[in-house]
């Protein structure tokens, strides 16, 4: 057990693949958003009066490519979507067979208000250390479960719902989200929620020995290093 790395090879490969893929997806997505910066709910929508959100125009320095081009942004977006989707699929299928499996399981105690309150207390004291033997503290666990099983799959499913060809192949996608424009809204909102997660994640890395964290996400590190 002590010889196993803190991060499995699968986790590390997937992590760095996602760094590239999600970066490309997010910033090319901002370029795509600029093509029609309004969000609607339901099946259809194109008129400002139908919109529930007028999205601000994202400046060119925030977008891929660094100038407005819907055609090029779409190519980057759809290119990065492939490794993103298949990476997630491989990771989720492999997860039950790895020892990381337990990291994402909520125990009975995790669901109690007391445990949540206690962990919030630790966070307020800037104590982010997970309990002995655990990969995550409780808030982290909730967050990672949300990202892994809700946020990331939602990006792929809502993205596919935007495809008229996939609507033909899988009509249930339209019903799952209540329409193409609802799916587009969820795609946008979830993307920003994931952006928020990445910001928190980077802050947490900065607060807990960024060089060691970076090194371990490359080499794997040692599972019991903190105890040694």
């Amino acid at each position: 057990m002590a010889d196993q790395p803190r991060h499995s090879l699968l986790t590390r490969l997937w992590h760095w693949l996602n760094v590239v893929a999600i970066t490309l997806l997010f910033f090319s997505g901002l370029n795509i958003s600029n093509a029609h910066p309004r969000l609607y709910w339901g099946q259809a929508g194109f008129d400002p009066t139908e919109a529930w959100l007028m999205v601000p125009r994202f400046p060119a320095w925030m977008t891929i490519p660094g100038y407005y081009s819907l055609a090029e942004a779409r190519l980057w977006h759809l290119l990065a979507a492939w490794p993103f989707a298949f990476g997630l699929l491989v990771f989720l299928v492999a997860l039950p067979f790895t020892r990381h499996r337990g990291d994402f399981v909520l125990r009975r105690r995790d669901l109690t208000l007391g445990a949540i309150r206690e962990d919030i207390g630790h966070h307020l004291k800037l104590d982010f250390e997970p309990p002995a033997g655990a990969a995550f503290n409780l808030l982290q666990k909730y967050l990672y479960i949300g990202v892994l099983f809700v946020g990331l799959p939602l990006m792929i499913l809502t993205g596919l719902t935007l495809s008229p060809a996939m609507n033909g192949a899988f009509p249930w996608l339209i019903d799952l989200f209540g329409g193409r424009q609802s799916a587009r809204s969820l795609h946008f909102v979830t993307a920003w929620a994931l952006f928020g997660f990445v910001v928190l994640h980077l802050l947490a890395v900065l607060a807990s020995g960024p060089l060691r964290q970076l090194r371990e996400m490359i080499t794997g590190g040692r599972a019991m290093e903190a105890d040694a």
Partner: protein
Amino acid sequence: MIGRRGILASLLGGMAAGCTKVAQSGPGGRLLAAVEDWNRTVQRALSKRTALAREFTRADISASFRGNGTRDPGTPAYQAHVASGFADWRLAIEGLVDRPLSLSLEQLRAMPQRTQITRHDCVEGWSAIGEWTGVPLAHLLGLGGLRDDARYIVFHCADRLSGTPYYESVDLIDAFHPQTIVAHRLNGAPLPVQNGAPLRMRIERQLGYKQAKYVERIEAVATLAQIAGGKGGYWEDRLGYEWYAGI
């Protein structure tokens, strides 16, 4: 604060510049071009050839149907057609067909019709729902006698963008799809000018720019190489949009 924003901007700027460099390099450009092939291959593998786009009810029809791209071809010839109620408009079926045809709107209206309430998805991101009536393209290709060497169907249009007539194309899978029609009615009335009067394509499993408006000629070809820039469509040649627009 300016510094932090500057660092972020230059980080992102460097990334965007890197992307542009990759896109312009040989392998990078080929990788980006390959994406369209993956999308087409996998989407086609996951779909039945005849899988239908969702058809909606009258209650779902959009209050107005946005006209995008050309909203009025505006040429003298087109204005004359508008004035005469498109009485002299002809739709040519030509190219790799045994019996080239020239059809009036009256002849088209007398043919088998299909009516469908479908969602139009613009590449920009918006959608509108409308009820379309028209002649299945498969019927017209049957009348013309499509030859065995035909691989693509090209739509030539009366509207001009930057001086070039608009054109689009599909392969035979989409050409013979049951919902692929040459539409002449929208929501129970003749097509409005902004939506492509008098004839426009409906290719329901692809994005809006494939739905050529103001269609004058339908040409069967063996290859797209001889059509303008060779990529099969105006926006494909002009700005690098994908020819297969299933997503």
